[in-house]
């Protein structure tokens, strides 16, 4: 790993086409000049018209942008996918078991497998959750596991997103767009469908309704509102699964129960898929200045009268500092070896490791422990000397605030750019649902770094997306 040529998902080292891409390569060859240019501009029009936009914070060009979409799909073979999905399921089950333990008996801490301080003094640990019994014992129902590939058989988990992972609407709309743009491709290549995600989401949410609900539970999606960067997704998902899209002021708590304000008066709500961060969901329990949340919501949750999805406090399991312990966590709760690898991570609190990190910073990736979305990180090889120095200072000042990893040679996929088709680095976020069972949608969201050589795939940093195809046997 590291300084070798990145793995090209479409081509072997000798330039021949890898098996999963054979039919696509042939199709690409058959396309007349300009066909892809045309597809690309059609795609842009489709997305803009549908209003699939995201907001870039701090952008001066107004709040809405269309996320760039690349018309060349990324392909994963059925065998590769089976392996990946097994590993993901294992991880998700273990992390949920870990969350249950952390908020109950804390056996893993007693056993000394994870330092107590790392959990109990972590700002992502939520003491309010202690002793609470979530429906079916599930804390993280909706998960987006970030995975990178560095070789034919080599996958690494970069991050387990257990709070409110976003992007699933792009997965669905990318497929929709692709089917409009290149219907003939789908007749040649058998691709596993993704469009049952909304139905599966609904089933997952229904399966974790409070036990005392009779009949079909009422489900609401709680959004911070139209100015949130992921608002499109919130409304999209609510629409697709037939749930009510609510903002904080639409809900209220009375007698420990949650209601929506409807035209005909209050209506009981049973399950809330909240897309608001923990800190903001209830000003009475968490941040008192929150205008987004619902006063009293947490008490209603504690009383078992409503289910919050995901549960508050799941951040302790996807914290970047806890990440290094995930293989340990899998072994502890499942008695199995981790099927998917973690990226080796250096611990800057350890003096020896820190010194090594500081000496080699130009080759490493530095991430803020609580950063996300590509903010607060530095990729050594593509950063300037000044940036290296800046992050060295930051690490020295607060070694516990950063994790450091080797720069992975992320795999590349053929991508349509100005100069034609060229390899660009990609990652993968499969979406996992956990309720009465674990459901993983085949594929997920592929993010692609559109800038040549760039390893940062976040949409806020100039990344785009691709439709992701898992081949059927």
């Amino acid at each position, binding site marked *: 790993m590291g300084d070798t040529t990145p793995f090209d998902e479409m081509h072997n080292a000798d330039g021949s086409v890898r098996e999963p891409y054979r039919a696509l390569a042939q199709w690409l060859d058959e396309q007349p000049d300009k066909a892809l240019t045309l597809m690309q501009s059609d795609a842009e029009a489709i997305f*803009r*018209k*549908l*209003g699939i936009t995201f907001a870039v914070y701090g952008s001066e060009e107004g709040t809405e942008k269309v996320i760039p979409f690349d018309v060349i799909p990324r392909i994963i073979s059925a065998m590769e996918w089976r392996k990946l999905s097994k590993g993901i399921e294992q991880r998700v089950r273990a992390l949920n078991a870990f969350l249950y333990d952390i908020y109950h008996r804390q056996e893993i801490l007693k056993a000394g497998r994870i330092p107590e301080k790392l959990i109990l003094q972590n700002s992502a640990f939520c003491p309010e959750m202690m002793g609470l019994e979530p429906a079916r014992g599930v804390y993280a129902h909706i998960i987006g596991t970030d995975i990178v590939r560095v070789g034919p058989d080599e996958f690494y988990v970069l991050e387990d997103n257990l709070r409110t992972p976003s992007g699933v609407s792009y997965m669905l709309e990318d497929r929709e767009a692709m089917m409009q743009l290149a219907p003939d491709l789908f007749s040649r290549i058998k691709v596993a469908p993704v469009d049952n995600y909304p139905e599966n989401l609904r089933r997952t949410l229904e399966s974790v309704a409070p036990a005392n609900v009779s009949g079909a539970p009422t489900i609401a999606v709680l959004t911070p*509102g*139209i100015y949130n960067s992921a*608002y*499109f997704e919130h*409304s*999209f998902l*609510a*629409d697709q699964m037939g749930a*009510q*899209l*609510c*903002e904080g*002021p*639409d809900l209220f708590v009375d007698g420990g129960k949650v209601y*929506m*304000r*409807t*035209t*005909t*008066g209050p209506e009981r709500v049973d399950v809330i898929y909240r897309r608001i961060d923990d800190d903001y969901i209830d000003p009475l329990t968490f941040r008192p200045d929150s205008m987004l949340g619902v006063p009293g919501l947490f008490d209603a949750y504690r009383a078992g009268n409503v289910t919050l999805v995901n549960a508050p406090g799941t951040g302790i399991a996807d914290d970047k500092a806890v990440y290094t312990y995930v293989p340990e966590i899998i072994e502890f709760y499942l008695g199995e070896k981790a099927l998917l690898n973690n990226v080796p991570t250096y611990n800057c609190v350890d003096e020896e490791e820190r010194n090594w990190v500081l000496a080699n910073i130009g080759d490493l990736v530095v991430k803020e422990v609580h950063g996300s979305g590509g903010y607060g990180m530095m990729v050594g090889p593509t950063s300037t000397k000044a940036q290296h120095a800046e992050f060295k200072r930051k690490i020295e000042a607060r070694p516990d605030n950063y994790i450091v990893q080797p720069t992975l040679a992320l795999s590349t996929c053929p991508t349509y750019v100005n100069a034609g088709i060229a390899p660009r680095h990609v990652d993968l976020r499969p979406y996992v649902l956990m309720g009465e069972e674990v459901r993983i949608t085949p594929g997920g969201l592929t993010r692609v770094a559109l800038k040549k050589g760039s390893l940062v795939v976040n949409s806020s940093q100039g990344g785009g997306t691709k439709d992701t195809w898992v081949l059927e046997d």
Partner: protein
Amino acid sequence: MLGRTAQNLFWLSRYVERAENMARLLEVGYRMSLTSRREGGASEHLVSMMRAAEVDEAFEATGRQADLDTVAHYMMFDPENPSSVYSCLLAARTNARSVRTAITIDMWESLNAGWLEFAQIKPRDVRGAKLLGLLSWVKQLSHEFRGALLGTILRDDGFAFSQAGNFVERADNTARILDVKYYVLLPRAKMVGGDLDIQQWTLILRAASAHRSYRHVYHDRYKAHNIADFLMLRPEMPRSLIFCARYIEETLDSLADIYGKREGCQEAAAKLRAMVEGTNMETIFAHGLHEFLTEFIARNNAVSESLSASYNFY
């Protein structure tokens, strides 16, 4: 349905209707100012159109001289003017985004595509014939949105809220146009109007898109009495007060049916309609046209307020 959703649907339709009315008023002001031969006449026409749009005072406060360019910009593009076409379309789209789940894809696409197109326009490129073209485009956008709505939306409570918004806005607009020009509609000793009267009457009819349909109904030359009758009391005229009032009442009654309960707003709608039902222009003139219109506008506002109280808008 969430109270907020009902509110958003109501205002979504209201703003689209308002954008259309603003375009129409500006078009009339534009035409009149071009044909005005009197010194200062152009400016007067423009100001009176702004009065009908209830933005004349706000415009005056900007300190700008009322000429074609300044008024066109103010009514079309000015974000400071809450009733400018720009502000209306933005507000409509913001309301639509808030209720994406309650409107159909066709409704969203027509509005969103329209907004994106409008947002591309550079105000300084819009002059003369281009302005007229843009004004008719705004009307088209409103028609397209309404068509998408009527063709695709479920006939449930959401439909009723959107229709209420549309027709409360339209009733308000027609009443205001009449009120701004009511003095040229008053009965006078001389039955035949002079050139100036004809010009004013045309303006009123155009502002309500009624200058052609007038002929179909009356087969007659323009007469003040007929014009007032047409825009107030003719049930076949879709922008007349009686048409709007009846439709609003019907719409709110349908809400009462859906919810199985009558609220204050149904009474308010009945009171609005009672004003225009079983009366005629002679009676209205006898009691004072201006007074009548003022009262109508107030009762129409009362419908809107009572609707939001009845169904938990907030």
